[in-house]
C-alpha cells in the first residue's frame, strides 16, 4: 500500500504557512489598535489548550483522519451527520481565503483586473496541487517557508529607519476588555483553524510526536505574528492599522531608501499569494476527503476539480463588496467558527475518552 507521507518538518512548515495565510495581511486584531501585539500574545495563550485537544485526538487515533474518527466515535449515521459540518467548514473557509485574495488584487495590487480572474487561477493551482496529493503540499511548504521568512526578514531590516516607538505609547488605554476581545479574534481566525489539520496529519510519519509538530507550528507563527504586528504598529501607528484593509502592504510600500530601494510591496504580495495557496489547498483537500469519505468513494481525486470550482464560485458570490467581507471576517466569523473549532472537538474528545476507557473502541497503537 503506497500511503502518502509527510515528514514532521514539512508538517510544521505546512502548519505555519497555513496560519500565516491571508489573515496576517489583513492585520491581526485591528480593533485593538496599538495594543494588537498584546492581543496576539493573548490569542496564542488561548490557543494552547485547544491545540492540545486537537493533538490529543490525533494521537489517540493514529493514522486516521477526522472523518474516520467521527465514524468511530459517533457511529455510522451520527458520524456522517457531524461530518457534514466538517465538509462545509473548510469549503467556506477556503472560499473566504480565495475571496481575500480576490479583494486584495481588486483593491490594491491590480485594480483593473476583474476579480474572478485571480480567484480562478488560485483555484486552478490549488486543484492541481490537491490532485497531486498531500505529499506535494508538504514539499511545497518546505520550499515556500524559507522564501516567506526571508522576505519578512528583509522587509523588517528595511523598515528600521521608519520605526517610531511613540506609536506604542498609550498601552492598554481602553483597559483589558478590547484586548481580550481581539485576542479571541486571533484565536479563531488563524490559530484554531488548525482543526482542519485533523484531516491532513493522518499522513504524518508515525514515529514523530504530534504534539511537537502542532506546538512548534504554533510558536513559529506566534513569533512571526507578534513581530509583524509590532512592526505594523511601529511604522504606521495604531489608528492607521485599524483603518487600512491590508496594513502590511501599506507599510512596506512606504519603504524608500535612497530613492533606490522602493516599491518592494510586490514582495509582500508574493508571500500573500504563497500562503494563500497553501491555505486554499489544505481546505480543498479536507473538503474533498470529507466528501469522498461521506459517499464512500474510491479516491478523493475524482471530485477535486468540481469541488475546487465550487469553492471559487462560492467565493465569488459570497459577499457583495469588501466592507461585507471585513465585517464578516472580524465581527461574525469568530462566533460562527466556534462550534467547528471548539465545541465539536471537545465533544468528540470527551466521548472518545469515555468509550476508550470503557473498552468499546479499538484505537490501534498508542504512545
Amino acid at each position: 500500500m503506497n500511503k502518502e507521507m509527510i515528514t514532521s518538518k514539512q508538517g510544521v512548515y505546512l502548519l505555519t504557512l497555513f496560519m500565516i495565510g491571508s489573515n496576517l495581511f489583513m492585520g491581526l486584531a485591528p480593533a485593538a489598535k496599538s495594543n494588537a501585539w498584546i492581543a496576539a500574545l493573548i490569542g496564542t495563550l488561548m490557543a494552547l489548550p485547544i491545540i492540545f485537544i486537537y493533538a490529543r485526538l490525533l494521537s489517540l487515533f493514529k493514522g486516521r483522519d477526522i472523518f474516520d474518527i467521527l465514524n468511530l466515535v459517533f457511529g455510522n449515521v451520527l458520524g456522517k451527520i457531524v461530518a457534514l459540518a466538517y465538509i462545509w467548514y473548510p469549503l467556506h473557509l477556503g472560499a473566504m481565503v480565495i475571496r481575500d485574495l480576490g479583494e486584495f488584487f481588486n483593491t490594491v495590487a491590480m485594480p483593473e483586473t476583474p476579480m474572478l480572474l485571480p480567484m480562478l487561477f488560485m483555484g486552478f493551482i490549488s486543484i492541481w496541487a490537491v490532485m497531486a496529493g498531500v505529499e506535494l503540499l508538504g514539499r511545497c511548504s518546505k520550499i515556500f517557508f524559507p522564501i516567506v521568512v526571508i522576505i519578512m526578514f528583509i522587509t523588517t531590516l528595511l523598515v528600521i529607519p521608519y520605526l517610531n516607538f511613540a506609536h506604542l505609547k498609550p498601552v492598554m488605554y481602553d483597559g483589558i476588555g478590547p484586548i481580550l476581545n481581539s485576542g479571541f479574534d486571533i484565536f479563531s481566525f488563524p490559530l484554531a483553524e488548525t482543526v482542519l489539520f485533523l484531516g491532513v496529519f493522518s499522513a504524518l510519519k508515525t514515529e514523530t510526536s504530534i504534539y511537537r509538530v502542532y506546538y512548534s507550528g504554533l510558536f513559529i507563527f506566534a513569533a512571526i505574528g507578534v513581530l509583524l504586528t509590532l512592526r505594523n504598529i511601529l511604522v504606521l501607528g495604531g489608528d492607521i492599522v485599524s483603518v487600512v484593509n491590508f496594513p502590511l502592504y501599506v507599510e512596506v510600500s512606504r519603504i524608500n531608501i535612497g530613492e533606490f530601494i522602493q516599491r518592494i510591496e510586490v514582495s509582500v504580495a508574493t508571500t500573500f499569494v504563497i500562503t494563500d495557496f497553501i491555505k486554499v489547498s489544505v481546505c480543498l483537500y479536507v473538503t474533498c476527503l470529507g466528501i469522498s469519505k461521506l459517499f464512500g468513494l474510491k479516491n478523493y481525486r475524482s471530485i477535486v476539480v468540481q469541488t475546487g470550482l465550487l469553492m471559487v464560485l462560492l467565493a465569488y458570490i459570497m459577499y457583495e463588496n469588501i466592507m461585507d467581507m471585513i465585517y464578516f471576517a472580524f465581527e461574525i466569523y469568530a462566533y460562527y467558527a466556534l462550534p467547528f473549532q471548539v465545541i465539536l472537538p471537545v465533544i468528540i474528545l470527551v466521548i472518545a475518552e469515555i468509550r476508550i476507557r470503557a473498552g468499546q473502541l479499538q484505537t490501534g497503537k498508542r504512545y
Partner: protein
Amino acid sequence: MVVLVIFSYALIIYLDLIPLYRKKLWRDFGVNMALTLLTFAIAFLISLDVAVPSPVYPIKNLIISILGK
C-alpha cells in the same frame, strides 16, 4: 461569457467525468455528476448576470439574532 462557460464545462466533462464513466466507478461518477451540475448552474447564472443568493447572509443573520448585536 455564456459560450465560454458552456465550452469550458464541455472540456471539463470530457477530461474529468468521462474517464470515471469508462472506469465504471459509479459512485464517483454520480457524486461528480451532481457537483458538476451544481457548479454549472452557478457558473451559468453568474455568466447571465443573475444575482445568485449568497449562503453567507443567512449565517450572518442567524448569528446576529443569537448574539443580539
